[in-house]
């Protein structure tokens, strides 16, 4: 039973790791710099593993999710700033993800984009309302496994494996160092997007994790996100092996799917589109819940999908309102791919307000008893706090200086 549970968690994490931000930044980074930025993905994936494990452990031992910790550790005023920034970024991300789902449905069906937005909205509302929490994660996680077709495509494109291996060693061979830095920040921001830890820790509370589940938490975080990182490598290799050589700047979600169609044909294209649909759809639901979790935890409301909607009415109303707001924003015609870039960069700015409280609580013996961070956890946690501060301080200036990665 335990192995089965671990396998389910890992499968869901692989399929659920890649969202529209990862798709856009990894393929675009490959198309611009080849494999040079693969090492950044490694740093991002290790970072999300370290902090997901930490916040999962906090959830399992103390029963507290991230925004409980934010409110307690940062106080009301600073906590409110963290909440507002998290909610703004969440809404931007949710809008981009829903737009991405609608584009995928359009590429699969040929029907109007606006109708597909409505279909996506109604489908999300129904799925979230009627499906138990663990199955929401699993359905989208398993569907997202179709994304593994990108790994097959990466191999079929016959990249120079020497150059790929060299990409895991930090180096910079470019005349555009600012653009290189912009992509590095974007890749880190996409890998360590805050909603992932909001959702992960709240999910731990939803599934009533206790200290006995700490092993499960560690394995899920390490193997699940590690293999999710493997998908990110595949995306970047596809970008580098196909688009860089052809001078293609992938500006559309369709371009990303084309990266699979070229080496694998029609079946590859369909698997890629279904994989993107489920991966981005899963991320939409994670983001939607994260917004509702954050507000409910910060204000001390009843929350949780394991309750009946009427058992946590304000939580339910919050996710419904967020869904309507995001659908309204997508309907304005905003480009989901461009919005994704802004969402990832602004989320990078908000990273410290999410990760610092997690680190503090994970070291607090009054909450964590004997389960506080070990030496390795603290060293890695501190190193990543420095990385996060650098990302937060440089993200917006780099976005401006590179004209959102255009120059």
């Amino acid at each position, binding site marked *: 039973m335990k192995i089965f549970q671990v396998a389910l968690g890992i499968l869901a994490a692989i399929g659920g790791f890649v969202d529209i931000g990862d798709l856009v930044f990894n393929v675009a980074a490959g198309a611009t710099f080849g494999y040079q930025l693969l090492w950044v993905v490694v740093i991002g994936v290790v970072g999300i593993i370290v902090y997901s494990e930490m916040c999962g452990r906090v959830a399992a031992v103390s029963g507290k999710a991230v925004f409980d910790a934010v409110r307690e550790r940062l106080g009301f005023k600073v906590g409110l700033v963290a909440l507002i920034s998290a909610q703004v970024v969440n809404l931007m991300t949710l809008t981009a993800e829903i737009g991405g789902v609608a584009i995928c449905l*359009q*590429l*699969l*069906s*040929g029907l109007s984009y606006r109708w597909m937005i409505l279909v996506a909205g109604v489908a999300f509302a129904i799925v979230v309302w009627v499906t138990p929490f663990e199955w929401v994660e699993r359905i989208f996680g398993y569907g997202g496994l179709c994304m593994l077709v990108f790994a097959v495509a990466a191999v079929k494109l016959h990249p120079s494996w020497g150059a790929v291996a060299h990409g895991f060693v930090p180096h910079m061979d470019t005349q555009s160092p600012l653009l290189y830095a912009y992509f590095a920040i974007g890749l880190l921001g996409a890998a360590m997007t805050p909603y992932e830890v909001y959702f992960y820790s709240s999910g731990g509370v939803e599934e009533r994790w206790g200290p006995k589940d700490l092993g499960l938490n560690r394995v899920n975080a390490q193997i699940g996100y590690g293999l999710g990182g493997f998908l990110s490598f595949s995306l970047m290799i596809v970008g580098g092996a196909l688009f860089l050589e*052809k*001078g*293609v*700047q*992938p*500006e*559309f979600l*369709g*371009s990303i*799917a*084309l990266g699979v*169609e*070229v080496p694998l*044909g*029609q079946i590859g*294209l*369909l698997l890629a*589109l279904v994989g993107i649909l489920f991966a981005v759809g899963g991320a939409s639901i994670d983001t939607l819940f994260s917004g509702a979790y954050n507000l409910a935890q910060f204000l001390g409301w009843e929350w949780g999908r394991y309750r009946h909607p009427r058992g946590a009415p304000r939580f339910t109303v919050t996710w419904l309102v967020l869904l309507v707001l995001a659908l309204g924003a997508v309907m304005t015609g905003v480009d989901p791919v*461009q919005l994704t870039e802004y969402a990832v960069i602004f989320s990078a700015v908000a990273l410290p307000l999410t990760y610092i409280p997690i680190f503090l609580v994970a070291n607090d013996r009054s909450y964590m008893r004997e389960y506080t961070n070990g030496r390795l956890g603290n060293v890695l946690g501190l190193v990543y706090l420095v990385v996060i501060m650098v990302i937060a301080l440089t993200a*917006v200036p780099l*976005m*401006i200086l590179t*004209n*959102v990665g*255009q*120059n």
Partner: protein
Amino acid sequence: MNRGALALVLVLALSGCNGGTVDEHALKRDSEKVGSLASEGSLLANDVSKGASTKYFVRVHAKEMSQAASDLQNALAIRPTSPGIKRDVRKLSKLAGKVSEELERLHLHPTDRGVAASLKEPLKADADAADQLGK
């Protein structure tokens, strides 16, 4: 809102827009965009000519790319230019228009292998021409 924040908002707003004078740098960037659309169109046309794509994917994706090329054509046709590059900018505008028309044909005939085969090389040539204009 203080002046710094206002300046930041203005920079952000301007960074995403397609207006202003076309200088050599902008010409290079836009020629890369036109070349990218043409090259991607050529890849798609090649797949359609082999029956390796789907009707709806081609219809929707070719339309998106055609629209993007058309937007570039319109912008480059009217935007003021730096001295000495006006001819190249207008040439790039015409090239963007040609790419847009070719992609539109792909959009209208998403399963026609013959049409796709006839578009493959012209789109590739357009990508090379855009590359030359950017140099």
